[in-house]
């Protein structure tokens, strides 16, 4: 049964083992990593096992009856085994460190070379081939074959024993070395003779023997001292593994300063990947300061012990790090430096942290030393156990002074402190602002606990905030000042406005007084004006914040000649501030009223106009301790300037106003008087009109009936009856005339009389008057004649009724006052533009002095005349008024006893045109 896969796999295994072993041989020989021992061992074992598998497969073919396995399988197996040996050889020399020992090299080469020298030639001769096919003796037997091959396979295990020997030798384990050697020797003994030539047991045993012998001869491995060394080696091994794992760098340098040992940590610290890279470098080069190493050497040597320094190292890539370099010098017997052991600890981070801490500490120190704080601690009894900080200085205290004292005693009178301490001791943390010796502290305090959470004291800090309080106060004061200034400006503005807009000075001054009082936060403000002689003052305005209604000072005139306040004040012409008005001699005159109102300070500001003091503003305050500041005085002076001008203006204005008012009043009085007169006159006229009207009707009845009686309508009368009737008629007519004249007068006075202008013939006018008057004239035996000048136009324009009335009045007047002679009525034109009516009599005449008033109503030459001659005394008045109304004038020429001539001169208005 031919299964080709098996020889193929066997060959592959064999070749793999061979190649790997060969590769490892060179690798270990030239560049074996020292710290990869275990891995190398394991690899070697793997190569051996692979080789064993290939051998087994080759034999397995034989077991299956395949008696002629491929020659390549055999080759591969043999090669693998040979190269395994080489690998082993390399390992041995490597571990033992005997490579340089020529003896060892020669022995090992011979032991390995034996395989090449013996087995390979055999192979080419076909001998070796037989060993797979045939049992020794050329017999074929399954059980013999299988036994032999199993034994051969087991032989390979001897390599393990060899390895154990190597390990024991390397680590100087005498017992293990002995045990391995014994196992191999036993193996040699139990291996059948015919197999010995093929088995590796001989070689292995030989190797073990060599090492064992070497160990006995060279290393005294089985000497008790060696055993001690073994223990030491063990501990050193532990130590080494320990140092390898230590988080600090460990090194040893030679006396020349060359690093001979370093642990991986040191390599890492110094930026090397491998410890090997550090080896044989100069330790001094690692220091930033090249002399550092020597300095330390001296130090270490001198001390003889372990001394550490903090040094700066430079890593491979140039970075500077901080390290704690601790070392000691080991001297040889001659007292020279043998080698130096040391540790390097990377303290860069620590250093940084330390520096940071140092800075922080410095800052903290600065805070404590310079900041206005007090750090304190108290124990349960209130005894000061800690008291630090610049804040103490402000209090004039020193830390020593405080410690050990009881805070309860120190600040027995400061309830704020005591309360805070008690609160903290009562397990209550908190903050408070405490005033101590005029300083202000913001205090934080907390109870201090022990592990059992019991309060054992108080800790806290106090911050001196006095400056802040002061700043706040200053700020507040500034604000107040600023507000006050704004307030003042507002006041000034309002006053200016009031003065400018209020025409009524009194109102303006009242407003000013009010504003000033409030602006200065005063109690009252009064404004007084002096008379010209400055002997007295008149209070014109008084404003008071309280009991304003009770003031009745306004208008009061107060003499000031004896008042020192004002005499002094007028002399000075400057503001006067009286800070003690209740006692000041300045105010002696008004002490009583000042005391009643409890005034504390007075400020008198002069009101000046054109360089003269015309009055004062007096501002008072009842606030205790209040004095008027220069700023306020200045403001008051400004206000005074404003209102002084206004007062002066108002005075001029008032004077002018008064003058105008007086004139107006006079005019009004005049007008009123005139109106009253007119009204009285109108009433009189109306009364006259009314009376005359009411008189007329009954007069008409009397006159009517008597006339009818007289002319016989009711039958003829006796002579006596006739006579009486005529007298009644005369009286009635007289009365009627009187009424008519009164009425005319009334109408004149009312201005109600109107003219009716129309054409008339002067001749007719004269005839009508003569018709009326002839009876009267004839009764007195007078001749009534008329004379109309030729140049008088036949038709004139005018009011014939009124002209007739004028003429009748004049004629009847002439007849009345003429006893003998004649009455002539004359019409003529004195000039081309006038015509005239003249009534000439030869009567009594009118005295010169009477001529002036004869035309006035109700006037006759003599009051007695009325009684003698009758008449109302209105006739001539009506004549004059009618003439005037008609645009003419009346003149009188008369001499007592020589008669009178009344001339009515009228404008000539020819109406010939109308006529034509």
């Amino acid at each position, binding site marked *: 049964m031919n299964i080709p896969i098996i020889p193929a796999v066997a060959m592959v295994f064999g070749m793999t083992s061979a190649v790997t072993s060969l590769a490892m041989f060179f690798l270990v020989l030239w560049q074996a990593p020292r710290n990869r021992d275990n891995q190398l061992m394991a690899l070697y074992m793997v190569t051996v096992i692979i080789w064993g598998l290939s051998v087994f497969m080759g034999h397995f073919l034989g077991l299956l009856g395949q008696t002629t396995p491929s020659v390549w399988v055999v080759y591969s197996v043999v090669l693998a085994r040979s190269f395994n040996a080489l690998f082993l050889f390399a390992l041995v020399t490597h571990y033992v460190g005997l490579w340089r020992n020529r003896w060892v090299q020669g022995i090992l080469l011979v032991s390995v070379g034996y395989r090449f020298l013996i087995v390979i030639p055999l192979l080419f001769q076909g001998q070796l081939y037989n060993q797979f096919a045939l049992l020794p003796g050329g017999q074929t037997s399954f059980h013999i074959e299988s036994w032999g091959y199993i034994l051969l396979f087991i032989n390979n295990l001897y390599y393990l024993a060899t390895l154990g020997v190597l390990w024991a030798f390397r680590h100087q384990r005498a017992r293990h070395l002995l045990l391995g050697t014994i196992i191999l020797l036993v193996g040699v003994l139990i291996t059948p003779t015919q197999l010995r030539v093929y088995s590796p047991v001989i070689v292995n045993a030989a190797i073990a023997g060599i090492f064992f012998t070497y160990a006995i001869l060279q290393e005294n491995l089985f000497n008790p001292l060696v055993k001690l060394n073994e223990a030491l080696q063990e501990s050193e091994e532990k130590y080494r593994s320990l140092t390898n794992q230590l988080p600090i760098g460990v090194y040893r340098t030679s006396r020349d300063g060359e690093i001979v040992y370093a642990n991986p940590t040191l390599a890492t610290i110094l930026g090397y990947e491998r410890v090997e890279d550090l080896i044989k470098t100069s330790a001094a080069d690692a220091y930033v300061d090249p002399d550092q190493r020597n300095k330390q050497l001296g130090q270490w040597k001198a001390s003889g012990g372990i001394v550490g320094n903090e040094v700066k190292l430079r890593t491979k890539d140039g970075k500077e790090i901080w390290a704690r370099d601790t070392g000691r010098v080991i001297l040889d017997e001659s007292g020279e430096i043998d080698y130096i052991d040391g540790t390097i600890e990377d303290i860069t981070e620590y250093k940084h942290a330390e520096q940071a801490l140092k800075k922080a500490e410095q800052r903290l120190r600065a805070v404590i030393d310079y900041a206005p704080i007090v750090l304190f601690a108290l124990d349960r009894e209130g005894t000061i156990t800690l008291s630090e900080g610049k804040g103490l200085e402000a209090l004039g205290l020193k830390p020593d002074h405080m410690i050990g004292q009881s805070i309860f005693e120190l600040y027995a009178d400061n309830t704020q402190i005591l309360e805070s301490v008690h609160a903290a001791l009562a397990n209550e943390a908190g903050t408070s602002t405490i005033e101590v010796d005029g300083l202000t502290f913001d205090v934080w305090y907390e109870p201090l606990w022990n592990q059992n959470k019991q309060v054992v004291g108080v800790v806290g800090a106090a911050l001196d905030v006095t400056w802040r309080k002061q700043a706040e106060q200053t700020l507040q004061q500034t604000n107040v000042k600023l507000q006050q200034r704004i307030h003042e400006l507002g006041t000034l503005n309002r006053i200016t406005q009031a003065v400018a807009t209020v025409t009524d000075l009194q109102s303006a001054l009242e407003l000013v007084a009010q504003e000033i009082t409030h602006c200065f936060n005063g109690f009252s403000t009064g404004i007084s004006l002096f008379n010209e002689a400055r002997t007295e003052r008149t209070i014109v305005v008084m404003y008071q914040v309280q009991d304003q209604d009770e003031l009745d000072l306004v208008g009061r005139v107060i003499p000031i000649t004896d008042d020192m306040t004002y005499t002094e004040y007028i002399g000075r012409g400057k503001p006067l501030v009286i800070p003690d008005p209740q006692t000041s001699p300045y105010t002696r005159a008004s002490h009583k009223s000042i005391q009643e109102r409890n005034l504390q300070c007075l400020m008198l500001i002069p009101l000046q106009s054109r360089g003269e003091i015309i009055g004062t503003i007096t501002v008072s305050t009842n606030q205790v301790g209040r004095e008027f500041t220069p700023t306020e005085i200045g403001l008051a002076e400004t206000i005074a300037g404003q209102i002084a001008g206004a007062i002066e203006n108002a005075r001029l204005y008032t004077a002018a106003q008064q003058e105008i008012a007086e004139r107006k009043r006079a005019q009004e009085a005049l007008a009123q008087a005139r109106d009253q007169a007119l009204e009285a006159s109108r009433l009189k006229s109306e009364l006259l*009109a009314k009376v*005359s*009207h*009411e008189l*007329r*009707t009954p*007069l*008409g*009845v*009397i*006159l*009517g*009936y008597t*006339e*009818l009686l007289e*002319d016989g*309508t009711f039958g003829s009368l006796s002579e006596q009856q006739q006579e009486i009737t005529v007298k009644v008629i005369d009286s*009635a*007519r007289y009365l*009627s005339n009187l009424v*008519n004249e009164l*009425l*005319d007068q009334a*109408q004149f006075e009312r201005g*109600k*009389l*109107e003219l*009716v202008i*129309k054409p008339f013939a002067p001749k007719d006018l004269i005839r009508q008057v003569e018709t009326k008057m002839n009876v009267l004239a004839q009764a007195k035996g007078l001749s009534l004649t008329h004379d109309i000048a030729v140049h008088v136009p036949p038709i004139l324009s005018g009011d014939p*009724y009124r002209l007739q009335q004028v003429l009748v009045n004049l004629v009847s007047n002439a007849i009345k006052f003429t006893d003998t002679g004649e009455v002539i009525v004359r019409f003529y034109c004195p000039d081309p533009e006038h015509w005239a009516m003249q009534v000439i009599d030869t009567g009594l005449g009118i005295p010169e002095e009477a001529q002036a008033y004869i035309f006035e109503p109700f006037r006759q030459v003599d009051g007695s005349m009325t009684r003698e001659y009758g008449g109302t005394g209105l006739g001539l008045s009506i004549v004059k008024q009618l003439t005037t109304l008609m645009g003419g004038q009346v003149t009188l020429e008369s001499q007592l006893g020589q008669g009178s001539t009344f001339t009515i001169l009228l404008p000539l208005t020819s109406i010939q045109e109308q006529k034509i």
Partner: protein
Amino acid sequence: MTNSIALIIEDDPKLAHIFSLALQSVQFETEIIQDGEDALDRLAEITPAVVVLDLHLPGVSGRDILRQIRADERLAKTRIMIATADALMAERLRGKADLVLLKPISVGQLRDLAQRLRPLDTTP
């Protein structure tokens, strides 16, 4: 004799009586009316030659009567004599009536004036 009726419109009965007597003495037929409205009614019936008119009348005023007469064609020839005690009114009405007499009016004057106003007797 043609129309010689004198209508006396006067609220004062005594004056009306006097006027009536005076006018009768110069051959007027007189008729007295004391009320303004009655006067207007009567004037619608008769055509007097002369009307003696008082201005202060109950009912229609004398001025209205004056205006009505003047507005009436039929009464164009009727002469109006105003007799008033109101001097102001007298002044104002002068020129509007044929005569304005201010009371008291003398009987003689009334007689003369009425005769003068009497329309010319055309009959022989």
